[in-house]
């Protein structure tokens, strides 16, 4: 490989990496916001993405609704579905036995239900492709080739992330979420409605998943198993420290870039392995991730 080719690959890898990375960043954000407030890694996140993708597909293709209705409708449906799952199911699980393991297993249960349901409807039987939001046209940035669709994906993801961070930092609800993340008991003492905050957190996570689904679906073949894409979100979250929201975003972009560089420089067979190696490497060298705080040891 000559230096010229290597430089071209580097540019292409970083450009493509930033684009898919923006979707991974959204997924990581959706995972981390739930983990921060309830210590539960949501194993149904991938299926939430998948289900939202199929809702959008159903509305757009089978009901031929216009895009400007489909998008908000999908996001709303995902918001409501996730919030209701938290309120109706997880609240009861937490009441029955507060240990996080049980909550995690309940989210696993949801992932099975969603996948089975999509298969049951028959839409998931054959791989489908989602019509792109804009006609993809090739553009050269430096020497890297991207499409207009790619740029829309990146821009949308960044806008959604910015809106989310603004909400988290400056609104009253966002402050309440941070308070719950730091100390649920103290938050309740100062009048934060825990049930409501958990519902909103799950709803937001569902909404962000829906955005990620709308962005990634035109680029991948949709199947009932497409939720496995969330593994990359988990990898991103770990690289970023798992409790840090900015870390999740940085982790997402990093994983996207690493994945593309591995594919270009080493072998495309190793692409699937890259996120797991990244997870293990980060955890061994710096278990708290790039942005995570000091690891706490719980006293007796």
């Amino acid at each position, binding site marked *: 490989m000559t230096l010229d080719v290597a430089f071209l690959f580097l540019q292409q890898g970083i450009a493509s990496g930033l684009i898919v990375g923006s979707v991974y960043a959204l997924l990581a954000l959706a995972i981390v916001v739930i983990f921060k407030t309830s210590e539960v890694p949501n194993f149904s996140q991938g299926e939430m993405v998948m289900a939202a993708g199929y809702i959008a597909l159903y509305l757009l293709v089978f009901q031929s609704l216009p895009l400007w209705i489909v998008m908000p409708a999908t996001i709303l449906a995902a918001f409501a579905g996730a919030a209701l799952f938290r309120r109706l199911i997880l609240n009861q699980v937490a009441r029955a036995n507060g240990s996080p*393991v049980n909550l995690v297993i309940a989210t696993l249960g949801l992932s099975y239900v969603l996948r*089975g349901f999509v298969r049951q409807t028959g839409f998931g039987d054959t791989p489908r492709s989602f019509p792109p939001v804009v006609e993809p046209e090739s553009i050269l940035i430096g020497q890297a080739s991207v499409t207009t669709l790619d740029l829309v994906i990146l821009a949308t993801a960044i806008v959604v992330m910015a809106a989310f961070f603004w909400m988290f930092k400056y609104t009253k609800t966002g402050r309440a979420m941070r308070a719950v993340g730091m100390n649920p008991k103290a938050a309740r003492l100062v009048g934060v409605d825990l049930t409501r905050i958990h519902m909103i957190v799950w709803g937001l996570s569902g909404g962000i998943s829906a955005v990620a689904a709308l962005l990634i679906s035109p680029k991948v073949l949709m199947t009932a198993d497409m939720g496995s894409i969330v593994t990359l979100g988990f990898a991103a979250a*770990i690289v970023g420290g798992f409790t840090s929201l900015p870390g999740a975003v940085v982790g997402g972009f990093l994983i996207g870039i690493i994945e593309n560089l591995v594919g270009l420089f080493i072998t495309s067979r190793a692409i699937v392995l890259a996120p797991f190696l990244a997870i293990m490497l980060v955890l061994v060298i710096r278990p708290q991730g790039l942005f995570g705080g000091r690891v706490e040891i719980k006293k007796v």
Partner: protein
Amino acid sequence: MRDKTAAVLPRSEADLPGLSARSSVPLGRVALLALAVATLALLPFAVTGYVLYIANLLLVFVVLCLGLHLVIGESGQFALAHAAFYGIGIYTSGLAGNAFGWPFPLSMLLAGLVAGAVGVVIGAVALRMRDIYLALATFAFGEAMQWVFLNWDQVTGGPNGLRISPARLGAFEILSDRQAYPVVVVMTVLMLLLTILISRSRLGRSFRAVRESEVAAMAMGIPVRRAKITAFGLSAFFAGVAGSMFATFSTYIHPDSLGFQTTILVLTMIVVGGLGSIAGAVGGAIVFGLISEFLRQTPSYQEIIYGLILIGFMMYAPRGLFAFIRDKVGGGTRG
């Protein structure tokens, strides 16, 4: 058929009073144990080869559950790489048989030891982490191992899978599920006894101390790190043995069945049975294994029902099937 039941039952009952006197096992449990022994002994005479295949598979899952029970149930360490060690066991014993024609008891031992050794190495690294980080690190290791199984073509056959030649011992070859059944049963019983032994030993107590509070365990002079790595290594050993048991009656293995799904299936079994109890691990494996087997007939609903069961258990029977039954029906059998 009835005579045989009669022949088996008294013997097991005669064995049991001694046991119950020593450890004050309640009567209900003795009856359950007798029923289990009778079922295991009579099964080959009553059913078809396919049912025996299912029985073999369920017993493999029992051993897998016992292994995961040691690390999660007893020691409270969320290790999610069980399927990887199971896979290492299958490939090790399969290859020992294929390439060197080793007798199966030897390849079983080898499978357990190789898986256990890998477990100790991974554990030494991963167990510096705890909770979610440990879960994710082991998850990543499991996925990476599945990739290795899928891509190490020369050894594992890669995406084509691996044909496993019949397990042999001298001139005797295991060619059917019916022939494999006694071997699988004996191994399961051995592993169950080993689990009980570990659980009641000093080691088992140190596992539980670590689970309840690492700081307190440390203060009592328990080598926490060593206990954790031991638990992890033992769990990998169990998974490896389970893999070699699978290799005795199966002729083929594909990496697809060695992913996170399998780990989660085993985790589900021990949670449905009741996390932290050996009876829960065994019962969970059998009950949940049977449920998934019945649901296999209607694949379209399998996932939905499976998910609903998980959610339902977490909502209304969080301490598992047996605790639930004890609370609802038994009331005070413990007293």
